């Protein structure tokens, strides 16, 4: 069965500190992994996806198939990074399919 686990409900860091939001998944095939972000009073939006291997707003995430993880990292947190972050998994490469989300991690960056 598809499952996404985000073990931390809340992650609080100080501005300038490194950030790592954890995500582990369970899927028997080749998954597509994503991070979505929801800023205060805004709609949920895509942050990045593993197949693009891109850095968005200083965030990166590497798919580790051996550890079945897709942790989101940023070397120096900014206050504007404070938001709810969701890891998500899709089951089939190259085809539209439903996304399964984790329960989310609230990132709070303190000044």
């Amino acid at each position: 069965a598809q499952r996404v686990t985000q073990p931390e409900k809340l992650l609080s860091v100080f501005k300038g500190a490194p950030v790592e939001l954890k995500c582990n998944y369970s899927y028997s095939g080749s998954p597509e992994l994503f991070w979505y972000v929801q800023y205060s009073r805004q709609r949920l939006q895509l942050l990045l996806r593993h197949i693009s291997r891109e850095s968005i707003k200083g965030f990166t995430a590497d798919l580790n198939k051996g550890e079945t993880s897709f942790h989101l990292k940023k070397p120096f947190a900014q206050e504007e990074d404070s938001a709810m972050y969701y890891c998500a998994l899709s089951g089939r490469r190259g085809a539209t399919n439903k996304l399964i989300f984790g329960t989310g991690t609230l990132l709070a960056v303190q000044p």
Partner: protein
Amino acid sequence: GAGVSQSPSNKVTEKGKDVELRCDPISGHTALYWYRQRLGQGLEFLIYFQGNSAPDKSGLPSDRFSAERTGESVSTLTIQRTQQEDSAVYLCASSSRTGNGNTIYFGEGSWLTVV
């Protein structure tokens, strides 16, 4: 329209009443999703429509919940005999078939409060 549109944005209803929530996806998007987000919790998958295929209803929590979509247009999520535990934000999202994975675009949600 430019994005996924949902209505109503807010709904307060009495326990036991039926409610309908509407979603207008982005034009041309073949896939449409409904999710539920209870206060302080993550996104809970409800139902997924993909083109003319049979919908994936595996996330619907009970038979009081149903959803319809005509073709690749508007979808309606119906909750019958609402209960207080149905209070949540109901999010709709749509996506198009792409070769680079599955980017979905969310609406702003319909806030449902059952009193």
